[in-house]
C-alpha cells in the first residue's frame, strides 16, 4: 500500500498533466491575442534582423541551406503580415530580394528568376513564395513599394500556368511540387485581393480546378507530394505537403483548403497522451528534408504545419493539442517578453510564427 499510492499518483500525473501544461497559452494564440502573437514575433525578429546566411543552417546540402534561408524570411514575412507589422514584412522582403538569398534558385536554373520574368521557365518556389511576401506587404500598405514587382511576378506566373500542360510550374528543372504551386496560386490570389482587381481570376480558376481533379489522391484526399514533369503522374500523398498547402490555399480557395484539412484530419492526425501529432505518410514511409525527423510515423513538419489548419478551419481543441506538442519538442525559452524555440532555429521559429497566426476562415 505504501508503494501503491505514490505509483498511482505518478501514473495519473504523467498521463493527465503534461499535455495540459504544454498547451498553456494556446487559447490566446488561437484567439489572435496581440500580446501572445508579439511574444512569438519578437523571437523571429531576433533572427531576421541578424545576418543570416546559408551556413547558418548546416543541412549538408547547399540547395537546402539556400531554401531554408529563403524560407525563414518568407515564413517570417507571412507571420509579420498576419500580425499587422508591415515594417517587418519589408525587412523580410528586402532580405528575400538579396542576391545571396536567391542564389539557390539561380544555381538550379542557371538564370535569375527576376531577370527572366519574360521567359517560360517555372521558378515556382522562388517566385511563388517571394510573391506571397510581396503581396502580403501590399495588403497592409496600399502604396507598397513592391506593388509593381508583385504585378510583374504575378503576370509571369499566370502566363506560365496558362501555358503549362499540367497546370503546374516546375520548382527546379524537371521537378514539380503541387505544394509549391499552391504557394504560386496563393500569391496570385493575394495580389489580386490587395490590388482590388480580378486580373488573374481565369487563370486561378483553371489551375485550382486542375489541382482538385488531378493532384489530389482519390483514396485519401491528400495532396500529391510531387508530380512527374514529363507524364504528369504523381508520387505519394503526404502530410507535410498537404498541410502546408492547407495554409497556402486558404488565400486562394478556402473550400479546397478545407477539403485537404478534413482529409488530413481523417487520414493522418491523432493524439498521444493529449499531444496532437500528424503522420507524414498514411502508412510507413521514410524521413526526408520535407518531412523533417519522423518518430513512430509522426512527422515534425506535418505536425507543425497542421497548426495553421486548426487555426484557419476553427478547431481550438486540436490547435491546443498540436501546440502542446510544439511546446514539448520545441523546448521554448522565454526571455522577458520574447519566446524562442531552442530546437526550432530560424526556420522552425518562423514557421511556428506563421502557422500559429494564420488568419481564421470567415466561415
Amino acid at each position: 500500500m505504501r508503494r501503491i499510492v505514490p505509483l498511482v499518483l505518478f501514473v495519473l500525473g504523467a498521463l493527465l498533466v503534461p499535455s495540459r501544461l504544454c498547451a498553456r497559452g494556446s487559447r490566446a494564440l488561437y484567439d489572435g491575442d496581440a500580446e501572445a502573437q508579439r511574444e512569438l514575433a519578437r523571437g523571429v525578429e531576433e533572427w531576421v534582423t541578424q545576418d543570416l546566411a546559408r551556413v547558418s543552417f548546416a543541412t549538408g546540402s547547399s540547395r537546402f541551406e539556400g531554401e531554408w534561408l529563403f524560407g525563414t524570411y518568407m515564413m517570417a514575412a507571412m507571420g509579420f503580415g498576419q500580425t499587422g507589422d508591415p515594417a517587418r514584412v519589408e525587412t523580410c522582403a528586402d532580405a528575400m530580394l538579396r542576391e545571396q538569398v536567391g542564389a539557390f534558385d539561380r544555381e538550379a536554373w542557371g538564370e535569375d528568376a527576376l531577370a527572366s520574368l519574360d521567359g517560360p521557365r517555372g521558378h515556382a518556389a522562388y517566385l511563388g513564395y517571394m510573391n506571397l511576401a510581396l503581396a502580403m506587404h501590399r495588403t497592409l500598405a496600399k502604396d507598397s513599394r513592391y506593388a509593381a514587382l508583385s504585378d510583374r511576378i504575378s503576370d509571369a506566373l499566370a502566363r506560365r500556368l496558362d501555358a503549362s500542360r499540367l497546370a503546374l510550374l516546375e520548382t527546379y528543372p524537371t521537378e514539380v511540387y503541387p505544394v509549391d504551386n499552391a504557394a504560386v496560386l496563393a500569391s496570385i490570389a493575394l495580389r489580386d485581393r490587395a490590388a482590388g482587381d480580378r486580373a488573374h481570376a481565369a487563370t486561378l480558376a483553371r489551375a485550382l480546378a486542375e489541382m482538385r481533379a488531378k493532384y489530389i489522391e482519390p483514396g485519401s484526399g491528400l495532396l500529391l507530394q510531387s508530380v512527374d514533369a514529363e507524364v504528369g503522374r504523381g508520387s505519394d500523398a503526404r502530410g507535410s505537403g498537404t498541410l502546408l498547402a492547407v495554409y497556402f490555399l486558404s488565400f486562394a480557395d478556402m473550400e479546397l483548403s478545407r477539403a485537404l484539412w478534413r482529409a488530413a484530419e481523417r487520414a493522418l492526425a491523432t493524439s498521444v497522451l493529449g499531444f496532437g501529432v500528424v503522420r507524414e505518410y498514411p502508412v510507413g514511409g521514410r524521413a526526408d528534408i520535407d518531412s523533417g525527423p519522423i518518430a513512430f510515423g509522426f512527422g515534425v513538419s506535418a505536425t507543425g504545419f497542421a497548426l495553421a489548419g486548426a487555426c484557419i478551419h476553427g478547431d481550438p481543441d486540436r490547435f491546443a493539442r498540436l501546440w502542446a506538442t510544439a511546446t514539448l519538442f520545441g523546448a521554448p525559452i522565454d526571455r522577458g517578453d520574447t519566446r524562442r524555440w531552442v530546437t526550432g532555429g530560424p526556420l522552425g521559429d518562423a514557421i511556428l510564427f506563421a502557422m500559429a497566426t494564420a488568419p481564421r476562415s470567415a466561415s
Partner: protein
Amino acid sequence: VKALALGWALSAVAYVVLAHALDHARLGFVLLAGGAPPWAIACAALLVLLRLFVVLAGPGVVLAAAGWLAQKMWLKFTYRPASSSLKP
C-alpha cells in the same frame, strides 16, 4: 520515490543548462537540419530526451512525492506503540 525525485531534479537542472547553452550557440535546431557535426546532433538529441523526461515525468514525480510525504506524515501522526495500548 526519493531516488526518482532526485533524478528528476538533476535532469531538470541539466536540461535548463543545456537548453541555454544550445540556444546561445544557435545549435539547438541541428536535429532538423542533419548536416551538423555529430557532437552537436548528440547534444540536441540529449536535450530532447531530457526535456521529454522532465516534462512528461515531472507532474507524476511531484504528485508521487506529495503522496509519499502525505502518507509518511499520516503514519507518523497515527502511530501508537503496541505496548501503550496494552496498558491497563
